[in-house]
């Protein structure tokens, strides 16, 4: 019988074998990440500042477009982008086009905006932003409702300009009271 205190992790390892370590559920700390935790040439502070600037611009453009130029909205999305709208999944430009056309006209008010640069390990180096908004929206014929929305924006080469453009890779929208 062991009287000295053993490391609880070691104890478990002995009992169940190394593959059952609780820590492995989330990711073993010493698994070598072959990517550095920061982008190679740009530091985190710069990424954050950039993401703020771009998200602000994006939010102005997006909500203005959805309210006033609905037919142009799908241009902001990647060809294979997905929208999850209150649990309804819509994928691809054509389906998105049809979906946005079916929505009544809208009046959005964005009240809060937060953003983060997405870690490059998730995006294989393709610059991506996480944009999170909340506010209220009034669809024609319906009462005003609060919503939460988030986007993944990714930088893509554009055929129309020599500068890359932001495209929506995913869009997730939910009314706060969706269950009512």
């Amino acid at each position, binding site marked *: 019988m062991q009287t000295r205190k053993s490391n609880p992790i070691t104890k478990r390892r002995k009992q169940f074998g190394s593959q059952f370590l*609780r820590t492995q559920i989330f990711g073993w700390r010493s698994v070598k990440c072959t990517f550095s935790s920061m982008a190679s040439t740009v530091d985190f502070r710069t990424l954050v500042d950039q993401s703020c600037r771009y998200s602000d611009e994006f939010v102005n453009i997006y909500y203005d477009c959805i309210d006033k130029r609905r037919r142009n909205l799908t241009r902001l999305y990647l060809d294979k982008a*997905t929208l999850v709208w209150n649990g309804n999944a819509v994928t691809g430009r054509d389906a998105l086009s049809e979906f946005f056309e079916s929505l009544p006209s809208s009046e959005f008010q964005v009240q809060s905006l937060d953003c983060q640069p997405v870690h490059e390990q998730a995006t294989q180096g393709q610059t991506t932003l996480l944009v999170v908004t909340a506010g209220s929206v009034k669809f024609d014929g319906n009462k005003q409702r609060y919503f939460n929305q988030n986007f993944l924006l990714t930088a893509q080469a554009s055929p129309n300009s020599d500068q890359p453009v932001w495209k929506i890779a995913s869009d997730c929208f939910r009314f706060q009271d969706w269950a009512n």
Partner: protein
Amino acid sequence: MAKRFDGSQQALDLNNIRVDPDLVSQNIEVTLNRRNSMLAVIKIIEENIPELICLNLSNNRLYRLDDLADIVNKVPNLKILNLSHNELKTERELDKLKGLKLVELSLEGNPLSGHYKNQADYVSAVRERFPKLLKLDGHVLPPPIGFDLEVAPATLPPCKASYFCSEEIKNIILCFLQQYYSIYDSGDRQPLLDAYHDGAAFSLSIPFTLQNPTTIDLSSLGEYQKDCRNIRRMKDDPTTRFRLIKHTRLNVVAFLNELPKTQHDIASLIVDVNTYTATLLAFTVSGVFKETDGKSRDSFRAFSRVFIAVPAGNAGLCIVNDELFVRNATTEEIRRAFVAPAPTPSSSPVPTLSAPQQEMLAAFSLMSGMNLEWSQKCLQDNDWDFDRAAQIFTGLKVHQWFTRINEEFIYKT
């Protein structure tokens, strides 16, 4: 009044009713230019013949139509109205009847008729109030030309619950969330260090209207206000903007540990899978939690949280981005929260476990670090196959899945 009602025409003739012999003989005074009388008449119509189409109010000394205004809502089918030989002085009286879909109107013998220089102006003024009018003072008018603008009623697509994309992703995410929140709610969030990537980022936001602390009360989200990141309000303050993103795993978890202790209603969690690629799984979780300590103990909050995770070697999900939005729960959400006996995952009464099962349960709970209820659920979901259940937990499934969808990622350039 019955004798004045013509059922076949749905017409009621109240011409000069004040001098109606029946009423006079009974000493009933119906003076329609008095509010009470008019209201009473409308009430009688509403209660007995609300489908009335034709109404004759001529010769009743009406000088204003305010008291008749209710007729627009109570007798909506009225199409023929005779107001001739009254004392209406201006066409503005007609504004009070706007909404009636009149087809025929008689106004002759009213002072207002004399106001117009020509017929066209008169017709135009009346039609402004009753665009569908076809007959005025007995004269047939040319029919108005409308616009075919009849649009379908504006309906929104129905709202649905969680969108998981596939059963596999559902299992992976639910498994992850069970683990994550059992630690998050445990009182010590330090073990979450293993859930986050070295370079992870976290930020939080709250509703705009609650970002200005004016009241200190239970619902004020006070614990979250100072760290709320709303970049629209920080345009001139890049330092704060930067400070409020918690960066690196240590900072993220240290901060999470400072947030109020919570109890999440796991059963009510809604998950939307934003997207996935070979290297990324992004999903949004929303639901309700209760604060279990501090100034706002017992407050119910609702949240929307975006997780972006990467596969971690062959061992599970590792969070790289985490954004949390917290607001107060609505009374409806509070009513629905924690309805199922928490946190028992199965709705049926817990069946008695056999001895080997109990042993397996204890071992699994110890191994996984989850409480008995969730351990039991995991084992039950896997038919009490310890290895299979454990496999889910070690994330081998996660690895297999990420490998398989390697071909499908959307970041094709």
